[in-house]
């Protein structure tokens, strides 16, 4: 089955997120666009960054341009519309702002190359994507930028394609390690349904929850620098620690250092995009018996590979794909460069 079929089956709004710049997001996007055209799926297209510009601002390398077909609905900036080849009927100029002008919704009248640069924040992205669906798109593609993955939050998009590639490191093992780690975070298991209901409905604060689901709301605005406060509030009856925002390495470290009971609780975060812990530290915490679950698991649909790095080296494509597939058995892996 092609990537587009998997995406279309499972999602209305899908994000294409990358492990780094030049990991192959735009190539993946283009593949889905082409295949959607063949299957008569009308697309909506937008981006958290800026895509389709011919020259990459960072590396000065040629970037693949994006071709939009007649009927596609796009959300991009006023500045991008001016330099696009496609003829675009402007449907709406929104109030959302970006460094390249306001965000505009448009319909492609005559196919052609376009530059896509959508809203800057994930909340705005959600509103814009829903609007694109309303305007008649069957499927919305949200292209990520650089290594930003916040749009994969299940409250924003309902599935994600993760693009990875040789650009991450000259060592294939390192690329696989980092990709596997990212995939693990995105796919962290959800807490039980009853607890999920209680957390979503009853607390917007960082809280400790006991076995009878009593909620102890901590008077802190963020978990950053508050690992000790959290640890001090964990007692024999505690079962869950609920984080409302981010979870960074130092917070985890402080919790495990200041509480002997950390193994008896499960730390719950909203979803995998909120975790800022690298692969090595993650494994260390796992070994120590730290348990982490999420409110919403991210629906990762596939991993795409780019065996080429713009730094001038490349991996053997077959070997790369085979090795990656061996480590990531539960997800389809596509090489988008072939």
């Amino acid at each position, binding site marked *: 089955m092609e990537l587009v079929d998997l995406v279309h089956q499972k999602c209305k709004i899908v994000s294409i997120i990358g492990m*780094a*710049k030049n990991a192959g997001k735009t190539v993946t996007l283009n593949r889905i666009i082409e295949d959607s055209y063949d299957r008569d799926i009308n697309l909506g297209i937008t981006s*958290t*960054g*800026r895509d389709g*510009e011919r020259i990459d*601002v*960072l590396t000065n390398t040629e970037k693949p341009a994006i071709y939009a077909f007649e009927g596609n609905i796009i959300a991009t*900036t006023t*500045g991008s519309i001016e330099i696009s080849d496609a003829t675009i009927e402007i449907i709406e100029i929104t*109030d959302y*702002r*970006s*460094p*390249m*002008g306001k965000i505009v919704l448009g319909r492609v009248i005559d196919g052609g190359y376009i530059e896509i*640069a959508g809203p*800057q*924040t*994930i*909340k*705005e992205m959600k509103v814009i994507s829903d609007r694109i669906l309303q305007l008649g798109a069957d499927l919305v593609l949200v292209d990520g*930028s*650089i*290594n*930003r*993955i*916040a749009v994969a*939050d299940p409250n924003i998009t309902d599935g994600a394609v993760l693009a990875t590639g040789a650009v991450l490191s000259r060592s294939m093992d390192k690329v696989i390690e980092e990709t596997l780690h990212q995939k693990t975070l995105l796919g962290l298991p959800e807490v039980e349904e009853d607890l999920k209901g209680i957390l979503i409905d009853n607390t917007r604060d960082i809280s400790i929850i006991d076995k009878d689901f009593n909620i102890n709301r901590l008077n802190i*605005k*963020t978990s*950053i*620098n508050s690992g000790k406060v959290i640890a001090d509030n964990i007692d024999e009856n505690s079962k869950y620690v609920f984080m*409302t*925002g*981010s979870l*960074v390495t*130092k917070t985890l470290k402080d919790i495990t250092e200041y509480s002997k009971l950390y193994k008896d609780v499960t730390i719950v975060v909203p979803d995998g*995009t*909120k975790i*800022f812990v690298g692969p090595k530290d993650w494994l260390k915490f796992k070994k120590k018996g730290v348990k982490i679950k999420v409110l919403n698991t991210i629906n990762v649909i596939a991993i795409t590979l780019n065996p080429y790095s713009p730094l001038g080296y490349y991996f053997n494509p077959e070997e790369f794909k085979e090795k990656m597939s061996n480590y990531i058995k539960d997800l389809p892996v596509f090489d988008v460069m072939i």
Partner: protein
Amino acid sequence: MAIEKVDLTKVKPYGDTLNDGMMQTAFTLPIPYGDEAKEAARILAKKMGLEDPEVVHYSDLGVGYTFFVLYGKCQHTVDFSKIEVPKVEVDSMDKYGVEDYIKENVKREITVIGACTGTDAHTVGIDAIMNMKGFDGHYGLERYVGINAINMGSQVPNEELVAKAIELDADAILVSQIVTQKDVHIPNLTELVELLEAEGLRDNVVLTCGGPRISHELAKELGYDAGFGTGSFANDVATFIVTEMVERKLV
């Protein structure tokens, strides 16, 4: 001296006569000092498009490396008349203009936090924007009436910056990135955006970055509201912050 008119559609380097294309370039090659090394440098310069390249200086760096300085004629031209660099689209108010604007449109003191983040230890850029005495005749944000400016200094971890922004309920965050070797500034800048999104804060702040290699287009990709390059002053970023707050209804 005869003043020849420059053709702005075909600009070329100037050595000692207009359009001679003369330029100097310097680099290091990982090969031992000697005649072969010198020839290698010359061939390389030729491949780079320099006509009649000449090695005018070379020296042994030890460990088998050699440093070269070459002169040569550049064969390329640029069309200067067609160059457009996207800039922040506001005509900057001066300090007093910003102060009046705050009084009339924001109607409260605003809090602005600045830092040079990650491993970057260059403070001069962010100080130029924030410090009382400012830079090149432009006072810094600390001196503005109506702005509570906090400069966290250099080598500030992103999470400390975010924690501070939450603690003080900041209206704007200013990040400086000067070191851009191996593009270290990129993941450092995106990490901050991602942390702000994770903390649910991104929509509540005006987020700007600055530094010699920061452009407005890069800011778009990074997820920032604006990017400020060389030659920016406090009143430029102050104008942006206050007008953006009003446009986005963050007052």
